[in-house]
């Protein structure tokens, strides 16, 4: 009998399983925004009710604007969140097709500060994905809402968010022959507009420094075009050096210690870099063509710029010391205003071709060019700090003003940015922590 047992065991060892796993390759997708439920944040007392509702609204609007989330209509919610410390009834959120759930509360502390807690839940995984707590002054509730949006965005997509950021731009008003141009700042969602200049002189090409506290821009104060620095905290502005000729297109280095810009002399413009600590400048290009619009790589080792030295306007790259200058754009048409992505993987540009201006991206070696927008007059791209979204100026046909638009680097989710009146020349700030 023992031998029979051995035989049976041997037979079972060599037996083929009833069924092996069926392997299925999944290489097509249905790119859709993630359905997410964001109920009003719970208020500990009636005075906090409005804050709780407003935070939920701002978070919902942020995520909706990204194009990657679809906030669900609160009217469809089955469960009412009364306590964020208890586990939600996930089944009632699955019923309304929610895949993510945000619960939170806003409480005014005895010391007058506002405490805001939130949790992000995976409805199908039935687990908490992240949760954070913030303390702030009550009037900063909007920034806390943006920080919550950033935390949710980062947890779901794997990328840093960009909601707690600001945009500096040129606000335009008045007739074409007497156009008034103001230096203005808004939150990325269009809230809190702030005008920094009075309009008594023209301002152009504003750019944030890496701390988002300083803006470099070009101004015609006294009739002479110069690059100025504006300190947002103190409101103080100063001229960046005293060059005999026109300076323009300033842009900070990633460490904030240098500014790259163009300096025009005798009809020839070249790229210069100024050290803000020593106020000494270094010339980087020496050819007779027009070299302008410099932009540092995120590691500060290289600079991309535009030049017509080859006969047409094209995008070039050089080392930060001016060596190894070489062209990277070779497609049809003209390329300008290159801006290096904060992520380092792409360079955005304006392309002129067949009478239209478009926004596109390419790799730093010039490969993989993709045109993202097909407006009539799109130009001047600027990157969100996560390198995922671009803003740009879109001119209205017939020269009737311009607006600021945003687009995802996939070319999806084109949206107009809410600015007070006409706007141009946007520059995105770093993420405000």
């Amino acid at each position, binding site marked *: 009998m023992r031998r029979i047992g051995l035989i049976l065991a041997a037979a079972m060892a060599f037996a083929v399983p009833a069924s092996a796993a069926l392997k299925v390759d999944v290489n097509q*997708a249905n790119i*859709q925004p993630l359905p997410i439920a964001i109920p009003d944040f719970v208020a500990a007392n009636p005075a906090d009710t409005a804050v709780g509702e407003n935070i939920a609204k701002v978070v919902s609007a942020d995520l909706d604007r990204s194009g990657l989330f679809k906030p669900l209509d609160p009217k469809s919610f089955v469960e009412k969140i009364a306590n964020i410390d208890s586990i939600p009834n996930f089944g009632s959120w699955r019923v309304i097709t929610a895949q993510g759930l945000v619960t939170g509360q806003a409480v005014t502390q005895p010391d007058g500060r506002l405490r805001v807690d939130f949790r992000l839940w995976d409805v199908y995984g039935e687990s908490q994905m992240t949760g954070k707590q913030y303390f702030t002054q009550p009037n900063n509730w909007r920034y806390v809402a943006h920080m919550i949006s950033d935390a949710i965005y980062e947890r779901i997509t794997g990328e840093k968010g960009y909601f707690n950021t600001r945009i500096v731009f040129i606000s335009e008003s008045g007739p074409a022959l007497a156009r008034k141009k103001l230096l203005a700042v808004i939150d990325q969602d269009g809230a809190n507009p702030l005008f920094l200049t009075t309009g008594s002189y023209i301002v152009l090409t504003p750019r944030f420094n890496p701390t988002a506290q300083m803006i470099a821009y070009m101004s015609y104060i006294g009739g002479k075009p110069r690059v100025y620095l504006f300190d947002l905290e103190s409101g103080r502005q100063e001229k960046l050096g005293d060059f005999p000729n026109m300076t323009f297109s300033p842009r900070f280095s990633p460490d904030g210690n240098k500014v790259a810009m163009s300096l025009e002399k005798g009809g020839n413009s070249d790229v210069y870099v100024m050290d803000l600590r020593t106020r000494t400048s270094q010339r980087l290009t020496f050819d007779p063509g027009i070299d302008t619009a410099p932009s540092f790589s995120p590691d500060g080792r290289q600079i991309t710029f535009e030049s017509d030295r080859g006969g047409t306007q094209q995008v070039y790259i050089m080392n930060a010391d001016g060596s190894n200058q070489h062209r990277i754009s070779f497609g049809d048409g003209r390329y300008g205003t290159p801006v290096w992505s904060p992520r380092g993987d792409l360079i955005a540009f304006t392309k002129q071709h067949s009478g239209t201006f478009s926004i596109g991206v390419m790799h730093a070696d010039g490969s993989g060019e993709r045109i993202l927008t097909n407006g009539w007059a799109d130009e001047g791209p600027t990157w969100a700090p996560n390198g995922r979204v671009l803003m740009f100026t879109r001119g209205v046909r017939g020269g009737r003003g311009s607006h600021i638009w945003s687009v995802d680097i996939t070319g999806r989710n084109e949206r107009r940015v809410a600015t007070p009146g006409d706007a141009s020349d946007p520059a995105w700030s770093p993420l405000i922590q």
Partner: protein
Amino acid sequence: MHGLGLPASLALHCAIVASFLFTWSHTLDIVDATPVVPVDLVTLADKTNVAPMTTEPPKPEEEQTPDAVEPQQKPPQPEEVAPAFDKTPIPKPPPKAQEKPKEKFDINNIMALLDKKKPAKTAEKGRNGPQTVKGIGAQDAMTADLRSLLQSQIYKCWSPPVGSPRPDQLTVEFQLYLRLDGTIAQPPKLTATGISSGDPFMRAAVEAARRAIYTCAPYRLPVERYGQWQSVIFVFDPRDMF
């Protein structure tokens, strides 16, 4: 008229009989003709993708011996058996070539019985049933339709994070077990990732794949083939998404 009537009647009868004979023989020819059989011409693949079913008996194991692979020039000679005690040859009747000693069935000796190889005898005794033998190729044609069914369902549910800097590295492999009604029997098991699952992009890709698996359930698949799809491995590859 009476003199002509008889010969005329005979001639007429003979003509009628002859005409019948001719007609019958012609009809028989038609019946014997080969019937027309409709034939569809199909093209067989050079390499079949399905494990073939064969009714042929397995080849005798002797053919797989080294002797069969390398045929000898001469037929093997019978061994000479030397007598043990008597050197004087005594003529003996030649042993019967096919004669075998009778064996008693012994349950304790079953291993020895099983060890004996008698393929020829097996073939003689009866016809073997169909046996699955190894075919050529991936042998996945029988499940290709199931794959397509699953793909068409999961495609609609999968929305991976697009625009990440390294999409070619963000592959995710999940194994799941399904019930007969297509619902998920137990939480899907993460079996492989392109890079470390601690990477934030990888983690987002894993969670997107898991959401796709859950939101697509229950899966609509043919119940009678449950054995082929009760265990499924989804390999999510976002490299072409942008």
